[in-house]
């Protein structure tokens, strides 16, 4: 079976290519949008293709000869929507039989209403442009399936963690620098899913006939709080939670420039890739330059100790009180997360040392 992976240089896409290729499960055709995105993929001798995933003709050409396609590309809000609009017609014209598209649990917002399940429709009006775009993309694809013949499975993973996760690397950095912070002592629910469990789910979504037309929420098997999540990263990084700042979420001002400036205040916010797309990151950096510093310059001070930069999106994420159910994925896909949270974090720790994020 020949599987195209769109967004093959991203965190999830790259791991999917690695798994499919190294485990010899399928022929993989990585699809990336720019030559530079081949840098890590080029470790393998693979028939990669370079194409703009928002351009139907280019994407059709890139998908030629593939039986299935997994869409794991990220972009800014506009690109997310245009990529979704191009995906279905391109797959149809290229003769692809099944699409597995990575949506996101963020279609339910970062603070989902208790009782949210796979059958809860995506929220098309959200504060976050990115989450709204993800919701729209899902809706566009679902509509296309109704009028087309290409099979479609959409997956809504929560917080994806694992080797090459920016979020994990940044939390590890904050724990090292003494700038890590938790809301409400980390009691909120972190809907974590190990990237390797997600890859297993993608495989099942490719292979299970009954999954066609369905949407699945995905999580690890354990219920994880944000405190658990940070503690596991601390463990992987050889440190602990002693220096973590306790944060009471401030009232965030809501002007767009204030929001952007807060985003820019920290690279950490920038690392929440599923939450904040790249273009916004650039705008945010520019906005920050124009934002007055908290402390006007004053010679009569000693240097401040490292302080956490608190921002709204992370506060919201950490305030989540609902664990997304995975009963439907278990029932229809036969998804039973193989990696425990602890085992997954051990793998991540090994990667943190490999990458030099954490020094042995």
């Amino acid at each position, binding site marked *: 079976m020949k599987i195209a992976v769109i967004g093959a240089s991203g965190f999830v896409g790259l791991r999917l290519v*690695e798994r499919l290729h190294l*485990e010899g499960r399928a022929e993989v055709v990585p699809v990336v949008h720019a030559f530079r995105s081949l*840098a890590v993929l080029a470790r*393998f*001798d693979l028939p990669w293709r370079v194409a703009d995933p928002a351009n139907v003709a280019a994407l059709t050409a890139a998908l030629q000869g593939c039986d299935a396609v997994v869409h794991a590309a990220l972009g800014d809000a506009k690109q997310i929507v245009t990529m979704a609009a191009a995906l279905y017609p391109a797959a149809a014209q290229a003769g692809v039989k099944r699409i597995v598209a990575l949506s996101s649990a963020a279609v339910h917002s970062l603070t989902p209403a208790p009782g949210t399940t796979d059958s809860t429709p995506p929220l098309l009006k959200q504060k976050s442009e990115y989450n709204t775009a993800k919701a729209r993309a899902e809706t566009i694809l679902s509509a296309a399936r109704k009028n087309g013949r290409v099979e479609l499975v959409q997956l809504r993973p929560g917080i994806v963690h694992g*080797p090459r996760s920016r979020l994990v690397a940044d939390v590890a950095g904050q724990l090292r620098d003494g700038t890590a912070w938790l809301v409400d002592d980390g009691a909120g629910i972190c809907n974590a899913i190990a990237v390797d469990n997600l890859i297993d789910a993608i495989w099942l979504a490719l292979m299970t006939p009954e999954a066609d037309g369905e949407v699945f929420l995905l999580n690890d098997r354990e219920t994880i709080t944000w405190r658990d999540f940070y503690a596991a990263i601390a463990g992987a990084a050889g440190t602990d939670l002693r220096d973590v700042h306790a944060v009471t979420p401030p009232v965030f001002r809501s002007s767009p420039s204030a929001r952007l400036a807060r985003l820019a205040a920290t690279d950490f916010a920038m690392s929440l890739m599923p939450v904040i797309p790249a273009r916004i990151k650039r705008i945010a950096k520019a906005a920050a330059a124009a934002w007055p510093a908290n402390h006007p310059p004053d010679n009569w001070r000693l240097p401040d100790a490292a302080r956490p930069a608190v921002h709204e999106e992370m506060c919201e994420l950490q305030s989540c009180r609902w664990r997304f159910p995975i009963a439907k994925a278990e029932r229809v896909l036969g998804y039973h997360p193989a990696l425990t949270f602890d085992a997954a974090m051990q793998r*991540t720790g090994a990667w943190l040392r*490999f990458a*030099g994020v954490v020094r042995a």
Partner: protein
Amino acid sequence: MTHFPNMPEPVPVIVSGCGAITKFFYASALAFLEEKRVVRVAAVCDPHEPNRAGIAARFPHAKSVARFEDVPFASDSLVVVASPPRLHATQSIFALEKGCGVLCEKPMAASLADAEAMADAANRTGRPLAVGLYRRFFRATRVIKEICTHGTLGQPVSFEVEEGGAFRWEAASDSFFRREATPGGVLYDTGVHTLDLLLWWFGEPSRLDYRDDAAGGQEANCTLELGYTPGFTGRVRLSRDWATRNTFRLNFTRGSIAWNVGQAGQLTLSLDGVTTVLRGDVLPRHDDGLTLLGHSAGEGSPQAFIHQLINLADAIRGRAALAIPAAEGLRSLRLIEACYRERRAMDQPWLSPAETAGLARLQRRTAA
């Protein structure tokens, strides 16, 4: 202050390869030197029309040609070879034989044998052949060279180098990632610069241990341990995958130097007996710090590219020796080929047993 050679006529320049390095570096450096009447771009060459057109638009007086063989070569022209590495040897030798001087981008060639053939051609024709190891023009790297040569901080004890990050170079083709165009990955790319500096400062190592993560393609991460006969060792970690510290840390018997790769004109020093570290600008002698003028403004990669072109223009006119002749370009390729011969797999302990087995299979195939 830079002295611009008083050329009777600007040196004609031919640019082969209109990809990213030409777009982001050579085009601006050449435009500046055209203004100073040091050079005049005579022709730009690239088979890929859109890339060529972008550069041709900046030099409307230059000929725009698709095929290298169709370039109107005048002897004593300066040919910038900025095409994919596999083409460096044929294009450089062709240009030398036409009587031109050549500035060949790094890596000098796609194999040591090809690079040696280029050096032979330069000897045979008597034309200058320079290699684009532009970091040797940085003030910071030159100071380190002097400190090594004169033993200013004593004898070398050890070094640690970490270089790279996610690959963001806006490559205009897939030439970096296809083995037919470039035989290696990060070591064959930025690693050429890294190893060149180490060879320049410390000489040839006597032993090495090299590991990378290539599995049928080109490495994105590698580690290298080097041993030197006087008894010191060094470690190098390169990546085009994930952020590193981008730092050279060099330890000597009487102090240490830290140099950040992105800072052409700055160094950090720690000296024995001094409890703090000193960090600052590297200034030419005539600005001994008393005037606080000059600073490191105007010191960076762009200036290094301009200096390399001036050096070659001078060499073509017989006014200066080449700063980085072919023989210097051979050194890093020799070391890189030795690394690839001794290649071992980097441990990737987050992979599952099935993946590790698959990886080993692919790596065996790479080796064969």
